[in-house]
């Protein structure tokens, strides 16, 4: 089996999963009809509004802690062939 080599930055399965979670959370912030929900939430705002706020916070967490770390991690990128490589000790 051929060696796939290092994964290019931002295309690993973990990163793709985080992208999907972030997009889903962003879409879910749109106010949705919530039948049977109480009128107001923890802050006294309507539940649909508070839910949007909490989902925004969850989006911020996913982006800040998850994606931000992966996309700025230089160790994940394939080495540049133009860069001088260390000599093989053998």
């Amino acid at each position: 089996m051929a060696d796939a080599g290092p994964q290019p930055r931002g295309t690993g399965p973990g990163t793709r999963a985080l992208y999907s979670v972030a997009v889903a959370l962003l879409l879910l912030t749109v106010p949705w009809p919530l039948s049977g929900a109480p009128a107001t939430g923890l802050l006294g705002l309507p539940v649909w509004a508070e839910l949007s706020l909490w989902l925004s916070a969850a989006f911020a967490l996913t982006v800040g802690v998850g994606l931000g770390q992966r996309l700025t991690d230089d160790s994940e990128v394939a080495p540049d062939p133009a860069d001088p490589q260390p000599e093989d000790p053998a």
Partner: protein
Amino acid sequence: MNIFDTTGAMVMGAYLVLLVCIGVLGRRARRDDSLGDFYLGGRSFGTLVLFLTLYATQYSGLTLVGFAGRAYRSGFTFLVSVTFGCAIIGGYLLFAPELRRRAEREGYITVGDFIQARYQSRRLTMLGTGVFTFALSAYVLSNLKAVGYVVEAASGGTVSFAAGVLSLSVLMVAYETLGGLRAVAWTDTLQGAILLLGCAGAFAAVVGHYGLGASMAVLAQARPEFFELPGHAARAGWLSTVLLVMFGVSLYPHAIQRIYAARDVGVLRRSLRLMLLMPFLTTLPMILVGFIGAAHFPGLGRADSEQIVFHVLGALAQHEPLVRPLVVLLVCALLAAIMSTVDSALLAIASIFTRDFYAHLRPDRSEAQLTRAGKRFSWLLMAALAWLSIVLPQTLWRLTEIKLEVLVQMAPAVMLGLHLPRLRSRAVLRGLLLGLTLTLGIHLAAAYLDTVTAKPLGIHAGIWGLLANLGAVLSHNRWVRGGPVDPAASTGTTSA
């Protein structure tokens, strides 16, 4: 209300003098007269400076006062501002880390440098920089107008709109041309700290006096419509606004300039993480003040509701003397927010003029000569924009309101260009032209035809334009055969 009494005037005067001193310090700290040192601060910004300059630049006076007014009028649907505040950082992460790496490797100064290097098309670069310049100029114009109104209102009419615009314009261009991005970022650091303090102080005073839960109970009686679930059009508008701001605001050239100026990618990551907290520490408190204002100060018209923060604090100051210094701090914070946005946008336009236009016209000029030309251009540009902000007819102001819808059309060129090595300049150019034509066409039709709206199906014209733009780019690119066209891809340094 006149906050420019003896103490207020002294505080304001000290703040303005401090800005010029920072400009002088920025000049002394310069390493050379290169464009990289003047426009990118020598690419040396650490986490705190980068975070505060991004914060002060992104959060304009609109955030501080305009958002509270919108919350007062629109109700809880304006919580979308917290969501789009977070989404902007999501937008940055789609391109900023990779762009930062290329900028360091290839010495970019402007976003135009990236477009030229990536697509090797002078036509696309010129059109792109035209779009960026239009968006930035409109941004400066609307913020200069806000400066005039704030100074006039805060001085109780003692200082006129025109005098406020002209005096602060001179001050801003002075410290900007003294120390370049280094001075602007250092003043932003001060301005960002004042902005954060002003928001926190205003929120604590208002919530401490009125109480959040109690105000929401009053609001449920006074404005029951706020509590109703938004209809389909409002929900479509929510999503459209989030997308527009996410792909538009993250592309402002003054924000990209700061991405280039980060010392390394780790600094960028830490700054963006801190930025993710700001919608919850700045935007949310201000719009909660707007909701509290709607509960206790009902019946204000549009113009009065724009001042709701000052109405609420003004009423509080009559009962609690300690609130008066807070009003002074808030006016300082408001001016700080506007000035930090204007100076950054002005510097970005000057860099575009110097690097993307003047340097191509006069290739024989040294970096020091180009830097000096950029400074002269800044003075001329500020004079022109200050004059326009005073005399521009209301009909032309409409143009400045669609800046984000125009700017967002550059998203495929920048964001896809970094991640799709086979994306070709011709596809991007066609998509951009289609997106711009559709966006402006919908706005023109809405201006002259009663049956057409600027938000068909509740979606901004700019988002319809972006969808058409994206469709054209991807479909055209699919038909065109050929190898990778991203020069960086041939060296294996791009992210696929």
